[in-house]
């Protein structure tokens, strides 16, 4: 992959993903040796760097591989190919024992506020678990440390002995944040941390994350399926489609002048809570569904739904690189990128031509 995706900001990169490939074998048909072993191409050659102190948004729809990529980055899943370099150390080469030390440096916040907390443990024990696992805070001081964390994320420390069921969704998410922060990690991977929450609560958590980043100098890898929260919180955005990156760049550029047709479609798909704007807005409605990751399209993976697709798109994989007219940090993987200014110009909404017969299931 080209260098620019791998370069971080002025502080250097904290996390580097180099040509990550993650395949899951699945058995279809199955049987006595006759079953085909097929492969889900969850992530296929992604290179990405997260700089110290930045917030990188990773955006894409269900099944695009964003969550898999995040779990590979934390080595909760093993890579099929590629390297994960954290703070200069190749995590993929570490033994399980050595990896444990690095677990303290990087933590995760989960999507489901109900599933991410063990319902049978008290909040104090959940938030204090990192201390117990790594033995970093003496048992006698654990309670105080946990209560400080609770205070930090806006929970009442007196609720130390309560159970998750006694909290609402937003409060549970705060518990998850406190647990992730216990070991003072450098990197926090947030896997759709607000998409299960109601709007008013969502805003509480977004603000909390923003404040914590400032106070604790955290680096975020922030995963989401739409751009509305991400553009609020992130410095840079990486857009994934079917296991690959289609566009990476600073939030202002991606948001205002996307170069990849998929990014443009994704941006325009999210409903705007503004009736006049909604009526004025040019909306790109993509036809069809995302193809199966078991048998992704040749060439550019987006071509089956792309209104700009030409024959070459089926033959050559477009490289992720800086296109003429983009800033240095703005990379696009498209043979026919949108020209700057295109995205805002009203164009007729033409149904995308289906390049292939048949219909993905």
């Amino acid at each position: 992959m080209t260098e620019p995706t791998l370069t971080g900001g002025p502080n250097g990169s904290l996390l580097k993903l180099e040509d990550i490939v993650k395949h899951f074998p699945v058995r279809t048909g199955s049987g006595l040796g006759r079953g085909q072993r097929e492969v889900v191409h969850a992530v296929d050659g992604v290179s990405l760097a997260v700089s110290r102190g930045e917030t990188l948004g990773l955006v894409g729809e269900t099944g695009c591989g964003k969550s898999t990529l995040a779990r590979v980055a934390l080595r909760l899943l093993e890579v099929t190919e590629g390297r994960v370099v954290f703070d200069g150390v190749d995590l993929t080469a570490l033994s399980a024992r050595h990896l444990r030390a690095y677990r303290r440096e990087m933590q995760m916040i989960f999507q489901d506020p109900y599933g991410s907390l063990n319902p049978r443990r008290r909040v104090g024990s959940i938030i204090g678990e990192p201390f117990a696992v790594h033995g970093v805070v003496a048992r006698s001081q654990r309670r105080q440390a946990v209560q400080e964390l609770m205070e930090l994320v806006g929970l009442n420390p007196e609720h130390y002995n309560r159970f998750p069921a006694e909290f609402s969704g937003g409060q549970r998410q705060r518990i998850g944040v406190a647990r992730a922060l216990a070991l003072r990690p450098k990197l926090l991977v947030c896997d759709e941390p607000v998409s299960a929450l109601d709007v008013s609560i969502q805003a509480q958590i977004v603000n909390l994350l923003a404040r914590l980043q400032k106070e604790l100098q955290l680096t975020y890898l922030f995963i989401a399926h739409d751009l509305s929260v991400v553009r609020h919180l992130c410095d840079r955005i990486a857009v994934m489609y079917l296991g690959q990156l289609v566009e990476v760049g600073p939030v202002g550029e991606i948001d205002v002048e996307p170069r990849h047709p998929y990014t443009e479609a994704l941006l325009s798909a999210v409903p705007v809570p503004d009736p006049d704007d909604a009526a004025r807005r040019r909306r790109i409605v993509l036809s069809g569904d995302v193809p199966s990751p078991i048998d992704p399209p040749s060439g550019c993976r987006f071509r089956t739904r792309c209104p700009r697709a030409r024959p070459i798109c089926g033959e050559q994989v477009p490289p992720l690189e800086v296109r003429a007219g983009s800033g240095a940090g703005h990379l696009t993987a498209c043979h026919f990128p949108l020209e700057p200014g295109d995205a805002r110009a009203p164009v007729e909404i033409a149904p995308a031509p289906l390049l292939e017969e048949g219909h993905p299931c």
Partner: protein
Amino acid sequence: MALLEVLDLQVRFDTADGLVQAVRGVSFAVESGHTLGIVGESGSGKSVSTQAAFGFARGAHVSGRALFEGRDLLAMSDRELRAVRGARVGMIFQDPLTSLHPMYRVGWQIVEAIRAHDRSVTKRAARSRAIELMARVGIPQPERRVDDYPHQFSGGMRQRVMIAMAMALTPSLLIADEPTTALDPTVQAQILELLRELKEDFGTAIIMITHDLGVIAEIADDVVVLYAGKIMEEAAVRDLFYHYHHPYTEGLMASLPSTGVRRGELVPIDGQPPSPIDPLPGCPFAPRCRYATAECTIEAPQLLEIPGEPRHRSACVLPRERAARQALRETRFAPATRDMVLDR
């Protein structure tokens, strides 16, 4: 006369923890060919209210009136109600996978919907109608796909099947209960587009139940904002977004990342929604409201018209004149100075 007029609807459930007051005196109306958006957060009673009106809230205590095409649904016998459901009212739900029977072919399920109300339609005619409908809602190769099972379709396509089924008998009202929540953004856009088209083509009125103000802005003509089983505000869509009156609506708008200031602080509503069991007297939003005064916790304000804005009603004691409201807002609403409040 409105197509559907719900009057003082109350829905209560008996649970082990006590009497849950899911809907507390809700009234709204849907005009023919219009789209009414019902917006609210989880537990606000937005789904329960329409479901109860059409006899779906089993085991609930329902009171009030629900006049549909002039007849009270809540006073109907089961048989009469069944004749309305499916024929005059179509429904689609949040999760298109679980909403279709996994063991029957989709064509069979659409045919059943058609023949449930008119036995004289032959199976063959119903089947070709099903194929037609599937083509209409944008399912490619409907002749082939009519014999597939739901699990062979993608999420978006399943929702299209649900829509085809709901529209099978060209109902006058379509109830869409969070129809796009489980879908990805690009697929959500497809479905919203489809609903808009169908509304144009068939003149069907739609009740769009959602928690997403973006969806409301895209599709609704009128909006009802529910909170804790009560209507906080109702208005035409532009009035609601540009001249909202109620502090809860204001809070929702300020919480949105897409309308809030980019890279700035969002302004959340502090605290949590109240428990639906033994609700407190007074305005249900009072405990989270930055304008609340002592009187708000004593008696719930009436849902009253805003002068000069037809169809705009709000259940709040704030000044009805825009200027006075704005002045108050500026004194109370200073996000920069607000510290984070402990979420107790």
